[in-house]
């Protein structure tokens, strides 16, 4: 797995190092100047999406065909991609938390630095879950189709919420009930959310292994 991991890191950095540095500097500068630390929540997502570009690199050089002639199993190939995604999203999460907290400290206001740090962790976990779903979709349909499909689902989801609000299907009563339930059983809710957050990448990993094992190149 080490070799696969190195291959993706070298490939991505070789291709996007300058672009990535520019984005990170730009995000930090914009957050600082505009006093918009929430802008930094994009970073874990962005880094997660970078890892999907490793699929495009693989496709362009027919790596998948070559990889099947090397002593690595399909499970290791899939696992390598999941680890790659986590290894990029995690620094993005730390970056968002640290730089965001710094922005909050430099511009004291409504948002606390500690809130910023905690929120970054939540965003990071959501990014891992969403990118895991995207990885499974990419193994199934290829990177371009998976990206398009994911954005369509994403837009569709928010469209349903928006339209639901417009026609009065979603009212404050439902939200209040959920908040009340969280207040009544905080530990249960925390464990439930944590279980779902962990289960999503695990399920996506096993699904991806199954998809990849049946693939022919």
């Amino acid at each position: 797995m080490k070799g696969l991991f190195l291959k993706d890191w070298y490939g991505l950095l070789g291709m996007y190092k300058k672009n990535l540095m520019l984005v990170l500097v730009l995000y930090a500068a914009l957050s600082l100047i505009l006093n918009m630390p929430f802008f930094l929540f994009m970073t874990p997502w962005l880094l997660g999406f970078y890892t999907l570009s490793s699929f495009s690199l693989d496709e362009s050089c027919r790596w998948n065909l070559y990889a099947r002639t090397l002593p690595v199993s399909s499970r290791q190939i899939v696992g390598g991609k999941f680890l790659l995604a986590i290894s990029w999203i995690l620094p993005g999460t730390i970056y968002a938390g640290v730089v965001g907290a710094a922005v909050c400290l430099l511009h004291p206001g409504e948002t606390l630095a500690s809130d910023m740090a905690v929120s970054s962790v939540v965003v990071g976990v959501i990014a891992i879950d969403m990118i895991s779903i995207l990885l499974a979709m990419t193994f199934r349909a290829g990177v371009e189709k998976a990206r398009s499909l994911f954005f369509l689902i994403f837009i569709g989801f928010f469209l349903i919420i928006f339209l639901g609000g417009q026609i009065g299907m979603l009212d404050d009563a439902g939200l209040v009930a959920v908040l009340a339930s969280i207040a009544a059983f905080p530990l249960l809710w925390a464990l439930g959310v944590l279980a779902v957050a962990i289960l999503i990448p695990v399920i996506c990993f096993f699904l991806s292994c199954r998809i990849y094992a049946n693939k022919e190149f």
Partner: protein
Amino acid sequence: MENVIEVRGLCKTFAKKDFSLRDLDLTVPKGSIVGLIGENGAGKTTTLKCILGILHRDAGEIRLLDGAPGAAAVSQIGVVFEDAYFPATLTTRQIERILQGMYKQGWDSARFQELCRQFQLTEDKMVKDFSRGMRMKLSLASALAHHPRLLILDEATSGLDPVVRSEILDMFLEFIQDEDHSILLSSHITSDLEKIADSVAYIHKGQLLFQKDKDELLESYALIQCSAQDLARLPAEWIVHSREHAFGRETLVRNPEQVRQQLPNAVFGKADIDIIMQFFTGRDTK
């Protein structure tokens, strides 16, 4: 003789491409070079992919280094395709680290570096900056550095200049010197196979037409020039294919010695692998 590859009754169908491999048998004896020939789309690459386990076969048996195709077998095989399938921005040094991470103890860094020096592959140069010849040399160095018992090469010499090709062919001959190593080589360049192959397998439209010892193959066919009337005197099964052109009629025949006795006035010429392929292909397209 021990075989490193044994394929029996291999079938693989691609419904979308309207192509299938049918009941294909192939053997690669230990210590030998087997050349796989056939026109474009005949099924050479499909056969190699099935042997390597990259494609799932529909039917048939494959034994690869005394086992089934899979991770255990591929760790003892070096594979070279028609190009280096590494991401374009990787350097030779990075590729070495990557492959070392995959082969672990099996990887011989000293051997890889020695091959890179021999091939004049610069450590810090990216794949995209290498010429095609250099990329093939990089593939070959990567395939040889873990001391494989078997090399599987798919059009590995195509598109290379004669000097590089000759260098690489010499390496292949060196590789099998100890008679413990073997090569299965698919190529369109039949002159390469005539130089180095011990036996030749000919795949045509998804079927194996023959697998023969190379010398025996070259001796068992001849290209003759004679009239249609003379040709009619030969048994039909001796004639592979006959074609007429501006300068007369050329015919590929089996059993040259017997044909010579039957047609003493015919002009006999050597049938090389190219000629044999052309006539076998022509037979089916007439």
